[in-house]
């Protein structure tokens, strides 16, 4: 195993995380999202990337050579452009997907947004339906992002790829939801995220009671 620790991560903490991962031959990067303004360097060259600013270690992770796993705190997922950095990291590892960058980026953005707001921050989406309740929704979101009980909850992004197929999963630790509820009216302030994901992926599945979404992208056909 190759272990890299980023700024403000001491050796003992990094070693403890690596031991929990049981990472084998993987390249592990341990970072503190509170000290990073971007994930671009953090994701560079690593297989398993773990944020010490979130609660709990992920436990043993089986990550093959063609995989990328990122575990990041909710507060960081709201502050940093995670979707862009992960999409760029995946494109660097899977050049076959160059023509799907927009779809991968947008689908990731929507999945991460749902994981943050409705998963780990447990925000009631119905509060966004009316303008009158919008201030309450906004204030509650800000309050919970600042609360370590919510802000330290992890979001785990797992990507695996083969020659012509990429699977990306985004998992939160919230209470889950019923994926059958998908308002598709663009005039509804909520619900368009999943519709957008469905339009950009070859396959979408939900698991863990709705806490995990898996999205499959096929590489563009060779010209």
């Amino acid at each position, binding site marked *: 195993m190759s272990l890299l620790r980023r700024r403000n991560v001491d050796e003992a903490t990094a070693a403890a995380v690596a031991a929990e991962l049981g990472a084998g031959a993987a390249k592990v990067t341990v970072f503190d999202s509170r000290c990073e303004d971007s994930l671009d360097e953090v994701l560079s060259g690593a297989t398993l990337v773990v944020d010490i600013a979130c609660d709990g270690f992920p436990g043993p992770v089986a990550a093959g050579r063609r995989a990328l796993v990122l575990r990041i705190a909710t507060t960081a997922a*709201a*502050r940093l*452009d995670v979707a862009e950095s992960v999409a760029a990291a995946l494109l660097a590892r899977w050049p076959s997907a160059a023509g799907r960058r*927009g779809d991968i980026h*947008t689908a990731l*953005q*929507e999945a991460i*947004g749902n994981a*943050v*707001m409705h998963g780990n921050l447990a925000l009631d989406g119905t509060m*966004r339906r009316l*303008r009158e309740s*919008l*201030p309450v*929704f*906004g*204030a509650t*979101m*800000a309050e919970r*992002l600042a609360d370590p009980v919510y802000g330290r909850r992890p979001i785990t992004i797992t990507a695996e790829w083969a020659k012509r197929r990429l699977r990306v999963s985004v998992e939160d630790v919230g209470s889950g939801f019923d994926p059958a509820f998908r308002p598709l009216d*663009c*005039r*509804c*302030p*909520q619900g*368009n*995220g999943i519709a*957008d994901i469905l*339009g950009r992926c070859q396959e979408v599945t939900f698991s863990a009671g709705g806490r995990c979404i898996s999205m499959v992208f096929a590489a563009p056909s060779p010209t």
Partner: protein
Amino acid sequence: MEYHVKDGAGRGNVALSGRLTFSDAPQFSKVLDVIVKRGAAGCDIDLAGLDFIDSTGMSLFVYVYDAAKSEALDIRMLNVKGAVREALCRAGFDTLFPLG
């Protein structure tokens, strides 16, 4: 996302820049009030500086649309381009506002 108010002759002008995403949801109410209160002459929303928008960001414009209808406001979207234009059209927002 950042917003800047540049009121002109007779009309309000609010310029949005950066990325308009779920992270900005806590300030939607404030931004909506700024747009709606630009005056009875109407308001232009300038998106020239906006690089990216997700579905939660788009929901801000749903509130703007509803407020425009209920309060008879004239809202125009200006300089909608690139990935932002593509995302708004894909979600059907070009049926709510002419995208200039």
